[in-house]
């Protein structure tokens, strides 16, 4: 039982970064960005390839994060410069990235269990017996850094502009801000975090798989919604902490449900999809941003 708990805790912490990325596009920018699915796998692909090439795992994780930012840039470019509706722009990126990920990895799966990862480094450093314990610590460290940086960022002039773009792009343009730029920045930030999460999860799992991002958005949304349900406060800090808790709770639910006899691991995606559908229809969920019309 404790091992289930620890596993849920460590998985939840590492996936929470992805959920925070989803929150930035879905809640702050009001865009349903499907790039996320492939950005998560991209993070894993880049980190695993880099580690196998002998690059330091910390640097490899940074590279993975940057690669996610680039993926967000591509989607932002398609949307703001080529005027492709955001949903479709995300689908195009997601589809294209699948091939890119395969190119980067050279095969569909790269095992990491023979290599040094951030987790083995951390557990060696602290003399921990199992890498899993290090995962929780690592998750906490990364989550704290990410949350602190995001709170700082969203309280800057530029951060305000991104928030305003999400709820009223007409207003922010009338106040002299290039909304293409703020949308682009939001998409890059979101996908950078999602790739970071993908990179951490790959190192935790001991492999990178080209399919590891499938369903990520729904998992991220589930975490965001659970967080909102338990922490009704609108304060940004509480919201972010709520997402982390949401992500952990989601993992606990998954662990419990999988233990039921009549449900197999294969049913999990259907289960999650149903949960999210019910939760979204029950909560007063904001409508996603309207697709810009361009005459």
């Amino acid at each position: 039982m404790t091992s289930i708990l620890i596993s849920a805790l460590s998985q939840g912490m590492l996936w929470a970064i992805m959920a925070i990325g989803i929150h930035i596009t879905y809640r702050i920018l009001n865009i349903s960005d499907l790039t996320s699915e492939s950005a998560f796998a991209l993070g894993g692909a880049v980190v695993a390839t880099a580690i196998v090439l002998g690059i330091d795992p910390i640097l490899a994780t940074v590279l993975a994060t940057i690669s996610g930012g680039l993926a967000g840039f591509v989607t932002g470019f398609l949307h703001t410069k080529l005027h492709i509706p955001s949903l479709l722009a995300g689908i195009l990126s997601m589809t294209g990235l699948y091939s890119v990920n395969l190119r980067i990895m050279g095969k569909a799966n790269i095992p990491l269990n023979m290599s040094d990862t951030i987790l083995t480094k951390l557990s060696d450093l602290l003399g921990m017996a199992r890498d899993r314990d290090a995962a929780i610590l690592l998750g906490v460290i990364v989550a704290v850094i990410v949350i602190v940086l995001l709170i700082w960022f969203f309280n800057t002039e530029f951060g305000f502009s991104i928030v305003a773009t999400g709820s009223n792009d007409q207003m922010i343009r009338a106040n002299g801000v290039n909304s293409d730029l703020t949308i682009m920045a939001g998409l890059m930030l979101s996908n950078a975090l999602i790739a970071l999460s993908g990179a951490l999860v790959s190192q935790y799992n001991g492999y990178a798989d080209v399919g590891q991002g499938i369903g990520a958005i729904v998992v991220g949304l589930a975490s965001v919604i659970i967080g909102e349900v338990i922490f009704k406060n609108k304060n940004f800090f509480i919201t972010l902490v709520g997402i982390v808790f949401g992500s952990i709770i989601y993992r606990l639910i998954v662990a419990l449900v999988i233990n039921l006899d009549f449900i197999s691991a294969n049913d999990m995606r259907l289960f999650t999809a149903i949960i999210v559908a019910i939760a979204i229809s029950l909560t007063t969920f904001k409508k996603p941003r309207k697709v810009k019309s361009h005459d």
Partner: protein
Amino acid sequence: MIEIKNIAKTFHKGTINENRVINDLSLRIEDGDFVTVIGGNGAGKSTLLNLLAGSLEVDEGHIYIGEKEVTKMKENKRAKYIARVFQDPQSGTCKDLTIAENMSIAQRRGKVRSLKKGIYREEKAVYKEKLKELNLGLENRLEAKVGLLSGGQRQAVTLLMATLVKPELLLLDEHTAALDPKTAKTVLDLTNKIVKENRLTTIMITHNLKDAIAMGNRLIMMNHGRIVYDVRGEAKQKLEVKDLLRLYDQEDAGLSDVMLFG
């Protein structure tokens, strides 16, 4: 001075829905002029303001603000010179940010947004003073999300925001149309006050003929994307609502002629 030279705008050009909305329109507005704009639905009033603000691009013609040609300038760049209040009270503010944060965004209109703090304590003190002048009790709700305000309150805040940094041109598009009569009057009084105090060059669209006569120093009427009537100074002061109604009728008659022969 604002100068519009022979601008034209057609929507859905080259399709069956082709719609010539602004038609070889020229207009020169002196500094400090307060122009009210009237005209029937679809006359092209909002389109004219959108062209001025850069939310839409002109097909032909030129637009100058002072000496500067802004015809091709992007909307967000033009915002340095132009402030707007829209008809929809939701449009001018961001509901997810606080009153103070919204004002801080307006305070930086036309400036590059950096990674500096979005709002400083000293600013809040200034905003509080400005809000006090509205007499709506908003000075105590600096940290309230704008989404919690009523339409009238939001419109008053938007007006205040539009003038935090003095614009070369203030554009008001039926900015009281969505408000109840009493709130509309409050916001109009506020408009008069702010425009006078700051000597703002202003264009205000309204369907209220009384307001169109009572406010500002110049009145223009639009029909089919043209300016069909332009009156200022004393002649404008002497106008009565029935004079304007007669004008609407004449234009309607003109319209039916066009339909007959067009």
